């Protein structure tokens, strides 16, 4: 809908982020700058919304000149959360049919006597025992029983399984039985999807690897079909560049790789915003940034320390371990579309149900009648914009009508109900932020809050009040910031292997051979990514003292994928890291456990904001006043309405004010002051100077 630049210019990269409610596009061209579009998401066919955004923003000629298309999606995650995956069958080593169900025998809630693990993704009747056995050293103890595979195939066909997962014990050390079983199934004419555990992870721990493989098999049809449809649609519109999808661990994969390895893309959506936040943190020199990404259906938050997204080497989703790198983002069901209701105990509750994009909040006038957070904000005058674009307008009467039944049940006015809805949803978001800060010993008050997403800037000052945060940053394009975050991503592929060997110069030859294999594997299986800069090969080792189990991950010097560091210097680096992490130094010998290869291509599409500001008039032209409710003062007052596009670097807006832009609205409560930074960010602090 809105376009900062005219059509017809060559645009080199486009990022499209699909959220629960809106689909956002940010495209960048080195000469012409940024283009921004927001359309409604179109579940269950998100590619329709994506193509609408592309079509709105770029004509076919512009689309054909895009070098990269980078995508953030929660298609895989939704399939997992909503149980929409295929009916899977699992072939497992005889004696280990229940790996998925026994887990590690522990409880997520050790003090809850009634705790039960979530149901397995594959019921026991579809888990088959196959006689075969590889030992921990990779040797074959029992050959693969072809008959067992055949019988399992008959049984799983009788039970109408859609796809097969094979996860044999110790396949990380020797995958030959998994490969042979796959071949037998193909030989028997099976043409469905087969996921093998060693292709998903070459790391040991059978439960963790099996769970990851099953998740991959579970989301693969949905993700693969979706990416295929989208790729076709993009090609049909003339796009001839490289299409990439965001990884859960940061960076992006080609669509082809994403279709083969969807488990790496589970958190694709939320991670883009964190990558963007890390870029802002580096640019503005913040040592701690809390992200507050509020969309229509969910609230995502992460803590960025020293300009780096918080990366873990194992993730957890719906209680399942995922053996892959993972940016730590906390997500809860709270957003602009969250529906408010009165519960049996006559308490006002908000969420987790959401009106999503369709029918959306009542105020959208699209048929929604249930009261949402957005309706509450409209009732309080926090959202004075009538035109949301795409023909969407906010209808105050409908918001009022939707809130009225709650007001009747509670014996309150609709304004009081609206105030309560906003307070409750704010408290839920604050709880999630406490989980990623306070519970890790980080005081949120030391961090800056980066608020983005369609509704993030609407809640920024309330969140700051609730958590006593001193500084808020509203980035430019805040309403489509996750899509912007896609533009700063690198193309990344990784492969890793568990290989236990003492750290010595002689062993490094073996390690280099593994690196050669891993880089060869990436080269052979990863799609080529056309980039101006050559691919960088990064070599990383998991190291530990002999006798320990857990490792420290250390990046090691190398040239073209071959280690240049000798054993002694690697050992020195490990010991230095060990002291930094744990404060102790030991004389024990060191061994290598994991070998991790990364191939990274800097797409260098966008480094920083070119600054869409500066072309305005200090916000004066649009200055008008509206009556809105101040949550701090608990009274109605006059809020100045300021057009963000008119703000120059150094311009100051004093609250109470409402800063409007095409994709989001910043509610600046009384006592807050917003200053426009040279890069276009608004930094918001309390007037009293508490924040200085």
């Amino acid at each position, binding site marked *: 809908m809105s376009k900062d630049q005219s059509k017809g210019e060559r645009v080199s990269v486009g990022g499209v982020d699909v959220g629960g409610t809106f689909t956002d596009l940010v495209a960048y061209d080195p000469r012409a700058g940024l283009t921004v579009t927001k359309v409604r998401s179109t579940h269950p066919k998100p590619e329709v919304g994506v193509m609408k955004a592309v079509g709105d923003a770029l004509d076919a000629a512009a689309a054909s000149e895009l070098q990269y298309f980078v995508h953030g999606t929660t298609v895989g995650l939704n399939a997992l959360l909503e149980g929409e995956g295929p009916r899977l069958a699992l072939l497992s080593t005889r004696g280990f049919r229940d*790996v998925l169900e*026994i887990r590690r025998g*522990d409880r997520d809630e050790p003090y809850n*006597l009634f705790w039960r693990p979530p149901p397995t993704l594959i019921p026991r009747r579809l888990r088959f025992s196959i006689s075969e056995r590889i*030992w921990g050293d990779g040797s074959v103890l029992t050959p693969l029983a072809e008959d067992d595979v055949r019988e399992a195939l008959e049984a799983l066909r009788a039970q109408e399984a859609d796809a097969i997962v094979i996860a044999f014990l110790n396949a990380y050390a020797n995958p030959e039985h998994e490969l042979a079983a796959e071949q037998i199934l193909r030989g028997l004419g099976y043409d469905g999807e087969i996921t093998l555990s060693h292709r998903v992870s070459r790391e040991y721990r059978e439960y963790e690897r099996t769970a990851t493989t099953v998740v991959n098999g579970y989301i693969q049809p949905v993700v693969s079909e979706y990416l295929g449809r989208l790729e076709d649609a993009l090609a049909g519109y003339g796009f001839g560049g490289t299409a990439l999808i965001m990884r859960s661990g940061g960076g992006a994969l080609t669509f082809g790789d994403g279709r083969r390895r969807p488990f790496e893309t589970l958190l694709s959506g939320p991670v883009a915003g964190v990558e963007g936040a890390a870029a802002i943190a580096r640019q503005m020199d913040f040592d701690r940034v809390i992200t507050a990404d509020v969309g229509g259906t969910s609230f995502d938050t992460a803590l960025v320390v020293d300009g780096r997204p918080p990366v873990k080497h194992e993730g957890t989703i719906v209680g399942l371990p995922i053996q892959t790198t993972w940016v730590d983002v906390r997500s809860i069901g709270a957003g602009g579309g969250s529906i408010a209701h009165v519960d049996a105990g006559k308490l006002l509750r908000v969420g987790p149900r959401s009106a999503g994009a369709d029918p959306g909040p009542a105020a959208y006038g699209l048929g929604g009648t249930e009261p949402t957070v957005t309706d509450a904000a409209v009732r309080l005058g926090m959202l004075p914009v009538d035109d949301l674009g795409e023909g969407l307008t906010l209808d105050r009467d409908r918001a009022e009508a939707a809130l009225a039944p709650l007001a009747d049940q509670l014996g309150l006015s609709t304004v009081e109900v609206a105030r309560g809805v906003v307070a409750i949803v704010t408290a839920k978001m604050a709880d999630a932020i406490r989980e990623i800060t306070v519970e890790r010993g980080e005081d949120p008050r030391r961090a800056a809050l980066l608020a983005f997403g369609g509704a993030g800037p609407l809640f920024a000052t309330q969140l700051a009040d609730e958590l006593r945060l001193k500084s808020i940053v509203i980035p430019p394009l805040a309403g489509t910031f996750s899509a912007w975050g896609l533009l700063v991503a690198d193309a990344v592929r990784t492969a890793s292997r568990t290989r236990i060997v003492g750290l010595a110069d002689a062993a490094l030859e073996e390690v280099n051979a593994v690196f050669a294999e891993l880089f060869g594997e990436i080269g052979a299986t990863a799609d080529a990514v056309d980039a101006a800069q050559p691919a960088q090969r990064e070599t990383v080792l998991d190291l530990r003292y002999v006798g320990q189990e857990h490792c420290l991950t250390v990046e090691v010097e190398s040239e073209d994928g071959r280690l240049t560091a000798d054993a002694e210097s690697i050992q020195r680096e490990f010991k230095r890291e060990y002291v930094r*992490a744990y404060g102790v130094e030991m004389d024990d010998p060191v061994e290598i456990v994991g070998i991790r290869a990364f191939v990274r291509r800097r797409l260098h599409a966008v480094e920083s904001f070119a600054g869409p500001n500066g072309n305005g008039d200090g916000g004066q032209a649009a200055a008008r006043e509206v009556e809105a409710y101040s949550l701090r003062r608990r009274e109605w007052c006059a809020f100045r309405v300021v057009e963000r596009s008119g703000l120059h670097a150094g311009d100051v807006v004093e609250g109470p004010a409402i800063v409007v832009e095409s994709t989001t609205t910043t509610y600046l409560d009384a006592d807050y002051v917003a200053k426009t930074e040279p890069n276009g960010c608004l930094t918001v602090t309390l007037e009293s100077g508490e924040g200085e």
Partner: protein
Amino acid sequence: MVGTAEVHRAGKGELSGLVDADPITTEVVRHGLMSCAEQMKRTVIRTSFSPVIYETLDFAVAIYDDRMRMLAQAPTLPFFMGVLSMAVDAALESAGGADAVQPGDILLYNVPYETGSHPPDAALAMPIFSNDGQVRLGYAAIMAHWLDIGAKDPYCTDTVDVYQEGTKFPGVRLYQAGKPNEDVFKIIKANSRMPRMVVGDINAQIAALQMGARAVADLVERHGVQPFGQAVERMLDHGEMMVRDYISRIPNGRYVGQGMMDDNGVDDTPLPFEIAVEVEDTTVRLDFRNAPAAQPTPINAVLPATISCSRVALSMLAGGGEPPNEGHFRPIEVVTTPGSMFHPLPPSPCFLGWPVVQAFDVIFSALTQAMPGTAPAWSGGDILAMVWWGERERTGEAWIDGCPHPVGQGASGSADGANALMHSSESATRLTPVEVWETRNPWVVEKVELAQDSGGPGQFRGGVGLDVVIRATEDAWLTSVVERTRNGAPGVDGGGGARPNGVTLEYPDGTPRSLSKATRVHVPKGATVEVRTGGGGGHGPPAERDPEAVLDDLADGYISTSEAERCYPHALGRRD
């Protein structure tokens, strides 16, 4: 019975009434302390050397204030969390009192009568001082299972006194003013069958203590000593009030649960015991007096262990699912008879102390009488500890490994019991991955699978147990400590009982030998050991089970056709 009853308060301190302490600071401090404990836990896991620590999590970390009141812990082994404070108390006393302990000192204490466990479970405690060194803020402490500290065997079921159970360190300085006390390390190494691993694990614990002490000092610096202290008082008050609120909802009265130990490890005689739960307004008293006299075998549970199981079992019911602090323990009293199985006196052997594991199920069953639905039916009732050791064929290197095994959980009045989870006394411990075992131990693990028909039948079915089969690929030794082999978990309200626990050693020639409690059993190369863990008790009459649920259980193999015919004929009638 010996001696007169003693009443012990389970928690220190009183309601402070400091209710106007800033609630946000209190919450930030509470989470900050839990985060300090969490960092300690992660450090132990990530730097330790034995799978018992890093996979099984057979350890606990905790942070205490200057008055030895527990402020925080990271969820690991619940049972240890309940005993650790008593060990640290004893260590301080033995070292000459709190004022005799200097910054950088680390005390080592492992005398069972104060630690509540056997000598291999050693406690390390370090004072925490403010960053300027001026104020003693409290203590960081860790109790962890050392693989071996020189008992008659690495794990024992047949000791006759405490002197056979390991080298004792009664509050000695392992570190003095930040420097290792090499003499003590020499004694440890000289007395351990696994000196390198034990010292590696000790280093992991020291790293964690130092990290925890720094983290707490930083936390206090951020908030100031006085606001920190107020937040702590409010936090403990909150814990106490939560538990008192829960107890106030239980009708006053005396509720008795029945337990039964298979034997004392040497004689074959079953040992019945009772635990009475007396509720009076907002206080609960657990009475362990009706128990056998202390046995001449290591079955005895020392007093701190008895107090710990009372603390932890009650916290699980009343603590709202949160990890407890000292406040949670204040409303609890424990009554024992000195000289009994739950309060043995020196030098009674006490290596196992297993009655306090079963005590969890007994306490829960007593409270279920007071308030139906309080807890699920009995679980498998034991942790089935198996400890293996030997010398590696090729290198001659000594190895030791051991683990508890998950058991079926009892059904409740609204749901089936969970299949195969660790016993509630060890609820945060974990099964080691087979793939990790096989890179370390001379084993082929042949099976780790859910056991058909092992759960108690009922309207709601008890969870099933596990079958684990391990084949030794080299000669090895084994100590098996398995209880509840004679009595499976009983059902509730018409529900049926479950399969009991069991262990069978099968020699290479096929000869079976049944094991329950046995020490230093030779497992020759090629022999297999099968561990069968018990199921959970059922709830409600099987005839009332939803036929659909029965058919699902059949299709999934949780029950066999014959079990279905025997217990659920009503469901089979509808099959066709």
